[in-house]
């Protein structure tokens, strides 16, 4: 397994702070990918490098996959940590990272697809012979929903 020497953190606030601290504790450099509004945040101050990926609006920065991949490639980061929320559960980001030779710190895309949808997740778990708490199955019509 190749060594990770630099991680880009694609998140903000307390999430980014925790990931950056964990990286630095392990002797790994941390790059904070920030929106314009977070340039002066605690996470940005802690990081070894800061890269602005877009304007304050999350859809143009933390949810902008192109900007995140460009930042990771351009800063020569070995891995991307998405934190949680934002693109953390988007299999497309994990796949894009793989396409660019960057490690995605999180589940594999196929696992995200299986577990992201609750109805599908229950099906997968049941198929493995694991019991699940009883609950609603997929609602197929309005009358079933009312019940």
């Amino acid at each position, binding site marked *: 397994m190749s060594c990770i020497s630099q991680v880009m953190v694609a998140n903000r606030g307390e999430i980014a702070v925790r990931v950056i601290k964990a990286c630095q504790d392990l002797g790994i450099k941390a790059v904070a990918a920030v929106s*314009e509004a977070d*340039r002066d945040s605690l996470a*940005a101050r802690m990081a070894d*490098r800061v890269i*602005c990926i877009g304007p*304050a609006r999350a859809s143009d920065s933390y949810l902008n996959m192109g900007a995140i991949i*460009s930042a990771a*490639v*351009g800063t020569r980061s070995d891995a991307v940590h998405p934190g949680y929320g934002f693109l953390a559960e988007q299999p497309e980001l994990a796949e894009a990272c793989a396409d660019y030779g960057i490690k995605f710190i999180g589940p594999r895309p196929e696992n995200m697809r299986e577990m992201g949808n609750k109805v599908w997740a229950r099906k997968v778990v049941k198929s493995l012979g694991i019991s699940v708490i009883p609950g609603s199955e997929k609602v197929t019509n309005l009358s079933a929903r009312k019940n």
Partner: protein
Amino acid sequence: MELTEEEIIQILRLIDGSDFNELHLEMGDLKLTVMKGGHGGSVQQRDRSELANQLNKATVQADTETAVKEKVQEEKAEAQGRHAGDVSIVEEEGLIPIKAPMIGMFYRKSEPDAPPYVDIGSFVEEDTTVCLLEVMKVFNAVRAGVRGYIRKVCAESSELVEYGQTLFLVEPEGNGIKEGE
């Protein structure tokens, strides 16, 4: 023809939640242009003032949700630059920056053997392409957004530029300086 504040806010919300980046609306003598982010600084500035004028024309105060948001962004942009390195280039007096509308790899030429889009002394108009920014293998043309002469190239070709980074400094036309001086 007049629009109420509520109608304007509704239009802003609709465009905000849609996949469209631009809205041009003409109703009688009222013309309204709404654009989402992602343009060069000076272009955005022009659109903002245009929007503000239209809002005033429609007897709406400029302190709508979007205007407030933009103001906050502008204030934060002013406070930026501590970590940003290149972004904090001190803008020379009288020169207008062309800023990166997105993060990406900066290219001054359309291909390795081609001449650069612009060089120091080049005259640019608002819609002149000044460089390319590559994002995930998609090349995006950056327009000058201002009329004048390129006085400084502030970024290196084939290097990553971040959002808002100054790429060029432009001497606006009419400052008494001519090409090549």
